[in-house]
């Protein structure tokens, strides 16, 4: 059985590699554009996927409402920016305040959602928590739709065109540059938070063994809340960045973005933070090439196919550890 898979894999890689090299040689600029576009896309996925993977690592729950938190971040930024813009504030101040408000409000929503919909279900069957999450997601979508509007709203970019980036702007816009740079910074900060701080240590301990962590004096509920807050903050940053990139938002954007990010998290091995980043980049870049060179209407099919293929070979994702089953 195994060698059939391997042969097929090698054959597909060979054909794709051959086609790929031919394309690269014939039009290197286009190739570079696609690569950078994919990197941007992957960065955004990574910012959202982190929240999924962190929450999953700690309470083994697919937080379906995470996409909505991201949407609320983008929405808040839009509202704050429009109000301040109308009052005639300086563009730089508006950008900073919009991001700050988006992050603060997303964190608050993430925190509240956890307290209402997940905390009472800590000891319930896992599927019940999942349905509760789905209900929360529906609720938040409709809440934003009713309170604001079901239409798409144009989002004026908060990021100016940088003067120093002018010579390279034809390959990659300033917004894309900002997205990649921001993602790298957020990743580094998050890495420091998890590796070196007290709360990061507590998070890792809780993810490994909740009961033992509680015995050692870690306030598990507080750690879980912190995880939701941190995850929501990265999602909000992702939300603002992608809204700047795409230029319009509505109440439903959270769903597809959340789904893609979740795929990325699973691809990398859910529960693992480097896995989420790697999975997001793999997904983003390969999607970008696929839509660039093949058919764009089958983009989502391709994303899911990659997922299925990778999971067939590595059932717990690229970086996920294969857990031995305890009896």
């Amino acid at each position: 059985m195994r060698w059939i898979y391997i042969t097929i894999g090698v054959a597909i890689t060979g054909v794709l590699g051959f086609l790929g090299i031919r394309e690269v040689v014939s039009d290197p600029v286009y190739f570079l554009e696609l690569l950078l576009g994919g990197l941007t896309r992957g960065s955004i996925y990574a910012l959202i996927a982190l929240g999924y993977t962190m929450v999953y690592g700690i309470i083994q729950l697919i937080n379906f409402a995470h996409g909505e938190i991201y949407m609320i971040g983008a929405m808040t930024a839009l509202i704050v920016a429009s109000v301040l813009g109308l009052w005639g504030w300086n563009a730089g101040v508006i950008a900073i305040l919009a991001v700050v408000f988006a992050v603060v409000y997303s964190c608050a929503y993430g925190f509240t959602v956890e307290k209402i919909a997940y905390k009472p279900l800590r000891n319930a069957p896992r599927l019940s928590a999942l349905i509760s999450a789905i209900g929360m997601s529906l609720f938040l979508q409709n809440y934003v739709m009713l309170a604001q509007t079901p239409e798409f709203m144009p989002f004026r970019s908060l990021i100016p065109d940088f003067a120093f980036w002018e010579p390279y702007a034809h390959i990659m816009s300033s917004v894309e540059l900002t997205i990649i740079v921001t993602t790298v910074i957020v990743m580094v900060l998050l890495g420091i938070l998890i590796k070196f701080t007290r709360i990061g240590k507590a998070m890792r301990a809780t993810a490994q063994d909740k009961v033992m962590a509680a015995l050692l004096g870690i306030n598990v509920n507080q750690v879980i809340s912190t995880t939701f807050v941190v995850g929501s903050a990265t999602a909000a940053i992702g939300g603002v960045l992608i809204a700047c990139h795409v230029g319009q938002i509505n109440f439903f954007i959270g769903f597809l973005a959340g789904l893609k990010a979740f795929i990325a998290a699973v691809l990398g091995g859910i529960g693992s933070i480097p896995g989420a980043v790697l999975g997001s980049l793999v997904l983003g870049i390969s999607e970008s090439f696929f839509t660039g060179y093949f058919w764009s209407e089958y983009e989502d099919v391709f994303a899911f196919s990659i997922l299925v293929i990778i999971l067939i070979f590595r059932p717990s994702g690229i970086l996920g550890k294969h857990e031995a089953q305890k009896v």
Partner: protein
Amino acid sequence: MVTIKKIKQAFFIALWFMVLTFPIMVIKVNTITDTVVFRWSYLFWNGIGTFFASLTWNYFLHLKENKQKTETSDDIPMVHQLLQNDRFRIPFLIALAVFFLIYPFVFPMYHTSIMISALVYVMLGLGLNIVVGLAGLLDLGYVAFYCVGAYAYALLNLHFGVSFWLALPISAVLGFMFGTLLGYPVLRLRGDYLAIVTLGFGEIIRIIMENWDDFSNGPRGISNIPPPNFFGIDLGQHGSVIYIYFIVIALVLMTIFFVGRLENSRLGRAWIALRDDEVACQAMGIDKVKTKLTAFALGATWASIGGVVFAAKTSYINPMSFTIWESITILCVVVIGGMGSAIGVIAGALVLILLPEYLRAVAEYRMLVFGALQVIVMVFKPDGLIKSVRKTYKFKKVEE
């Protein structure tokens, strides 16, 4: 009871929510005309609403926690107790039968039509219950098989003029095959990995249907799908709705019978064992691959039968009827009804499908209410509305 401390807590929660909902509820921006409207009254009502909501919420949560402490784990839900009692069961079943028999003749066609879709969901729910409730495999792409059934009937009818009655067994077989085919590669996956891959399959099938124009007519869908024929007699529009209604009733009864028999069969017990402990189950000599595949395939069979009925009922299908939300709705039917319990799934389907239809009076708010209800049901009844009860044998003490 309500103490000063609790009122204080509720007050702070209300304040928190007022801050939380401020930008989205109070400020309404119109980005096209560049105007901003502040709706301060919302803030006030929201505060008052949250204050009372949080008081009730905490009160019930408190009740639930107290109840959990006193309750033993093996108490049987009231519905099951009533149904086991012969004095109650027989009149209840007769009343139910009479109700469903006269339903289409008493109520207008609109209500019959809604009832048909609710009953289709009963069928889908019972099918998914095999996969999720009994075998414990979280399938988020169940709608794929529903789609296969619907398109099988529509396309076979379009190209070869196959009738409803022939399409029913054909698509059942097709569903079975698809279930096995899609089930095979994901056998090694567990838990949430399985969920996301099945979700992927569901989306793949939908997107292919949407983009493969020559095969499925793309997003325009297929129209003029004929309703089932009744020995060649034209029943008219009203008559054919009633006819479909009774077909669905028959199919649902068949499903209930089959699933009930399966549950207590060797295979059904193997599913439950596999759900509870995979390793121990294999050690007892149960073939894991075969058991899982049959669960997938049988679940898929019911979904495709449901799809055929759906296509015949609406006479028009397009890929938008088979989005992932559909899978999620079916999953909600199973989990909210009570996983693994047939009565629960039936109750869940009737509540979840009929409720939004009758909530149309408050059309705008119905999905909001629906989402909130899902959360509330799960928080207060995490095992679903009607918990499943395994078949048990009770020994009565013999008086000596």
